[in-house]
């Protein structure tokens, strides 16, 4: 601790250089924060998937419907606790670019299926009573400026025409990764108005009493409907969402390679800055050694300078990235469901910064440590 002023003096010897090095760390970790958030946005579905839920779709593909009569038959399968269903509506608000996730749901069972959504009981009751009612996520409600009780027109794309809904509730996610962009309305309302596709649903959600048995139950369900006109494909929600994320090309690879380039560059910049500063102070270090500073304390001194750059610049960058998140969510306008920098990514970024700081300081520090007083002083 008593060396703190010494470290500080060493850092601030060249103010511009110190600022630039701090700036490099700041930008690199800011970028790291953004990349981590982008990755989370693409893979969010996997993280939030309920372990005790299965998704059941038509074996041919997701867009093919399943008969509504399957509900009772799925319930008969051993280990199934609850079944709910939904149908993709694909509507937009006013203009085509105002796209958001909207689907017709089974009002009796949908909410208990998804414990991660928080919605006041009275709102849900009001929704159940109003055939033209709907529930909308907080993000989407804010995006279009919708308020409770508003009557809003949605243009259908699959079932065309204008559909009007009354907003009966606004839900929020129970944790920060939950999807707050969805829009739900009565399946009965859809069934009543659509001219074709009656008696079918888009997909089923199945809740299990024992998540451990998921593979076995999924298989039992698929076997039940094998060789029927509507064969099914049942997967855990996690597997289902992973399948989707995988189709978005290899996001992980892109992020890793950009991140790798950035950190490698950072290592070079910091390394060269530190070695410049050590080289300039050769005389100083020699004098310090003459005064009785041990080799190890010189090593630690240089290393802690480099570490200080990493910690200060890095954490500032990460905090700035975290502060940017709401703005990014707004800019991307529903393209990606969430933008969020989780604390675990935050920690990971900081660890990476510290490692880069240590690696960059290592060679100059060792050079300073090995410095022989005689040689160094002779050079002056």
């Amino acid at each position, binding site marked *: 601790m008593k060396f703190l002023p010494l470290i500080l003096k060493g850092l601030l010897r060249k103010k511009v250089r110190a600022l*630039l090095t701090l700036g490099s760390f700041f930008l690199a970790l800011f*970028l790291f924060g953004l990349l981590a958030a982008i990755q989370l946005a693409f893979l969010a579905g996997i993280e939030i998937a309920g372990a005790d839920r299965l998704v059941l779709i038509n074996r041919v593909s997701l*867009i093919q419907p399943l008969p509504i009569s399957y509900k009772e038959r799925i319930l008969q399968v051993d280990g199934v606790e609850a079944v709910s269903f939904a149908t993709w509506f694909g509507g937009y608000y006013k203009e085509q670019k105002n796209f958001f996730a909207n689907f017709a749901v089974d009002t009796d069972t949908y909410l208990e299926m998804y414990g991660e959504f928080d919605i006041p009981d009275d709102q849900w009751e009001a929704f159940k009573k109003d055939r033209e009612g709907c529930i909308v996520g907080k993000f989407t409600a804010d995006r279009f400026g919708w308020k409770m009780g508003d009557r809003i027109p949605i243009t259908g794309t*699959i079932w065309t025409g204008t559909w009007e809904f009354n907003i009966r509730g606004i839900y929020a996610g129970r944790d920060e990764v939950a999807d707050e962009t969805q829009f739900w309305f009565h399946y009965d309302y859809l069934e009543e108005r659509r001219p074709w596709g009656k008696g079918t649903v888009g997909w089923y959600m199945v809740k299990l009493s024992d998540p451990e048995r998921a593979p076995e139950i999924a298989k039992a369900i698929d076997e039940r409907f094998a060789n029927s006109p509507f064969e099914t494909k049942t997967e855990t929600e996690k597997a289902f969402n992973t*399948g989707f994320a*995988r*189709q978005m090309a290899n996001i992980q690879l892109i992020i890793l390679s950009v991140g790798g380039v950035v950190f490698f*560059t950072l290592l070079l910049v910091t390394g060269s800055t530190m070695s*410049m500063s050590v080289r300039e102070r050769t005389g100083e270090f020699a004098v310090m050694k003459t005064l009785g500073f041990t080799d190890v304390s010189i090593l630690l001194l240089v290393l802690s300078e480099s570490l200080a750059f990493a910690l200060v610049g890095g954490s500032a960058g990460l905090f700035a990235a975290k502060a940017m998140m709401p703005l990014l969510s707004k800019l991307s306008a529903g*393209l990606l469901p969430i933008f969020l920098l989780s604390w675990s990514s935050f920690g990971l970024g900081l660890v990476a910064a510290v490692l880069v700081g240590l690696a960059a300081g290592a060679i100059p520090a060792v050079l300073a440590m090995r410095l022989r007083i005689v040689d160094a002083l002779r050079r002056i």
Partner: protein
Amino acid sequence: MAIPLVYNIRSVRERWASSLVAVLGIAGVVAVFVATLALAKGFRSAMVESGSPDTVLIRRAGSNSEMESGVDLDQVKIIADAPEIVRDSGGVPYSSAEVVVIAAFRHRKSDADALAQVRGVTERALETRSAVTVAEGRFFRPGLPELVVGRNAEEMYVGLELGSRVKFGGQDWEVVGVLDAGGSALDSEIWCDASILQQTYDRPQNIFSSVTARLNNMGDLEAFKDRLTSDPRLTVQVESERDYYRKQSRLLLSLITFLGGLVSLIMALGAVFGALNVLLASVVSRLRELATMRALGFSPAALVLSMIFESLFVSFIGGLLGCIAIYPLNGLTTSTLNFQTFSQVAFDFMVTPTLMAVGLVFALGMGFVGGLLPSIRAARVPVASALREL
């Protein structure tokens, strides 16, 4: 009098270690920047050039994509009667009613199920689109469960090689041909007989997803559009195929551009910081050298120019290196889920000379910004005191 450029090149070489830092930093940024541009460019051209220049796509009014659309047989016949559509020698119009669905196939690279667009057509589909040809094998025979697959689809999915059999929708299919659509989105599609597809997907035989037609000339588009939209028997919208695909790619394209742009911008700032650091240090370490030049009679302006040139030189090398490093990506095929059509599209990275030039300009821009401050610093060297130092 200007300082010879050789001076700068030699001094960069003299300080090769720290110059290398600046060069590599800029190379990294340019590589990422050009890669993003190449991705966006490849995706745009795959999607937009999917449309043959003289064809139009007719869908049900209000539908976003072919998959959501529905046009019944009566409407198909009315559309085909329009005089703007080209006719063959027998007087049969070049118009093709098609069924579009998606089906899951095993994706070779990710080893997971991916969604491919399956198009049910008749032979007329090929004749209507001048840009699509059968490259290998033959076209399917009507009434048989046979598939013709796009070039990219064949490579992307397991089991779609020419001659192999594949099962989907409870039907066994044989792959009998490979289509070449010039690298467009149609190359990611799978084609088969429309009526068999309708049976397999349990769809009514007389409802199609869309109608594609070839016009006599594109100048007729407005007249054609007016005729169809004002006909009370029809509820359709008409777009040139190009416009349709442009819209289908808009969302993903803006996502790529937005994210790629943001990342490149931040990286560029970082590289400027790095270059500034290195150049400032190199100015400071040769203060005496610079003072000597001033004493010899070089003007401050000459020093500024010289230092900026040095910075530009370093960043040019960096930019060149970045372009060379990223060039192997050229022609590499990748695929992604287009969430507007809900299916996989394959496209190539396109590293064109223009994009590389843009990358180089970007590098020079970074060099200029990074070199400005150090060059001013160099020009303001106090001659007397700098020379007095050891």
